[in-house]
């Protein structure tokens, strides 16, 4: 139950999440991965609390709240994107080469 195990897992999750965000073209999956990354951070903080830093859990609460807010806005953006361009693909929003 030592924290390094937790840290390892959270690193792995974070790496996967980060790769996912950049790899996927569909905004929805980017948001999903993003959430995953936020959780990975939470996990790392819990590992820290395991190592004695009680505030770790507190900060996880904060991260959680922020992530929730972020999802709300993310979904909002997703909705407007789909509403405007009928497809959640991010590349539609690239600035065309002048």
């Amino acid at each position, binding site marked *: 139950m030592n924290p390094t195990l937790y840290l390892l897992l959270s690193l792995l999750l974070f790496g996967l999440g*980060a790769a996912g*965000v*950049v790899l996927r*073209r569909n905004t929805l999956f980017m948001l999903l991965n993003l959430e995953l990354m936020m959780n990975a951070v939470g996990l790392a903080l819990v590992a820290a609390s395991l190592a004695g830093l009680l505030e770790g859990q507190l900060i996880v609460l904060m991260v959680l709240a922020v992530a929730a807010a972020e999802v709300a806005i993310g979904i909002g953006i997703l909705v407007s994107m789909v509403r405007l361009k009928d497809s959640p693909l*991010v*590349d539609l*929003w*690239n*600035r*065309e*080469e002048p």
Partner: protein
Amino acid sequence: MLWAASLALFAPLLGAILNGVFGHPFREKAHWPAVIAVGISMLASWWILGRVGFEPVVLDLYTWIPVANFVVPFGFYIDSLTAVMMGVVTTVSFLVHVYSIGYMHGDPGYRRYFAYLNLFVFSMLLLVLANNYALLFVGWEAVGLCSYLLIGFWYEKKSASDAGKKAFIVNRIGDAGFLLGIFTLFATFGSVRYDTVFQMVASNPHLYQGALVAATLFLFLGAVGKSAQFPLYVWLPDAMEGPTPVSALIHAATMVTAGVYMVARSHLLYSEVPQVGQLVASVGAFTALFAATMAMVNDDIKRVLAYSTISQLGYMFVAVGLGAYTAGIFHLYTHAFFKGLLFLAAGSVMHATHGELNMQKMGGFFRKMPHTAWTFLIGALALSGLPPLAGFFSKDEIIKHAYVTGHTFIWAVAVLTALLTAFYMFRLIFLVFFGKPRDAEIYAHLHESPPVMTVPLWILAAASVGAGWVGIGEEHSVFHRFLETALGEFHLVEWTVHRPAGVGLIALSVGVALLGILLAYSLYLLRKPDPALLARRAGFLYTLLKRKYYVDEIYNLFVVGTLRVTAKVLFWGVDRALVDGTVNGTGWTLAATGSVFRRWSSGFLRSYLLWILIGANFLVWFLLRSGGGH
């Protein structure tokens, strides 16, 4: 004393404001506030004339510019010189004001005219009363401004507005020199106040030799500009575009004499550097002769008078140049009266002929305009320097002084100019007043000017006769002893040669004058050697004089030309290439670097994310490298 001076100074200012700003109610009656203001000023000046004592009265009203050590007070410096100048300025102004009521009657700009005139009197008094060079300069500029406004009074006329501009610009050139003079004075003496400067110069004269030369030269440059000496005289003949009373007041009696007054006021500086005095005198002499020659062939009455003013100013500069400051001022004093008279008389002639100035079209005016004719004759006689009249005493004294101090060449030029002066004055008289009227139509309409114009003429005529008597007896005359307090008690310039001045000298100058008159008589009245014939034979010489030595053309070619060329060079070379170059250059380089980076931010959203990830990597890597967690 303070009350009188400030009253004299600020009354015209008040008049100017009343007429200028609140003048609407006075429309036709604009002359009342103006004339009253100048009248008060004149009375105050006479009062001061009577009360001025031995010691100069220095009064500081308030400090105008208190900047660090450059402290410029607004104050008066009243001594006999100031008193004389104020007396001359206010008296002539008063008479011109009265004259103008008639002359300018019915002119749409009536109110504006009197406002400017009052403003001019205020500025001239300020110039004369100032107790430091900076305030003097303010008056100097204000006077220049008023002359510009009055020359270009009928601004609809293009020639008038051009003349105004020309006068202002040429004056500015002189003023620039004047300013440099003030700077050098301030640099060396640390103050611009007369009393401190004179005090320091008096205490150890040889200490500031170099600076003094520079300062006096620059100040003289200012004087040349203002008093229309050679090379900066070109604006005065054109200044005749303005109304005649203006020419009479400004371009005969007051403004042009400012230069002479300034030199006289700084006589202490000039007497320390005799070689500069030599230069002043020679410039004065040359201008006198030069202007006289041009006056001989000119057909416009006012232009002839203008050249004659330049020539008389030349005389004054000869006097002050050679250290005879009192003689200079004396000639200034007398000249103001008879030249003012001549101009006003010419104005009256113009008034009668409805603006016709060409002498060739006139003739035989004597019978129709007796007053104007007689006063004109008296003025001409005074100017030519015949014994009983004022001109003789002042001009003769200058000639004698030149001879006494051994400047024979200047003396010779002065005598020759006296001859020419007499000649062109009587040429004018014979052409205008005697002989047969050449233009019937003008002659028919001739009528004598109204008394409001002729009365001042007669007063001035009396003055030009009587003014001279004050100065009989040179050194110990009333006038000289009076001015001694201001100009004399510092040591007079010691010239090496001191030749006795016999009676012969006086006889010579009178003879020369009579010769001039005789020549004019024979040439223009009896037409023995017909002037036209003479002109043709003179050929080149005549056309040269006629075209005023092509001086304007030369200026145009050199001064204006060079300015235009340099402007072009500056425009193309500096502005286009350098300035625009750098600006566009930076713009271009920015755009170039911008485009490089633009490719990097391709607008491809997900590449941004990638870069964030890469950034994170480096961040952590850096953290690791820098000793990791502690």
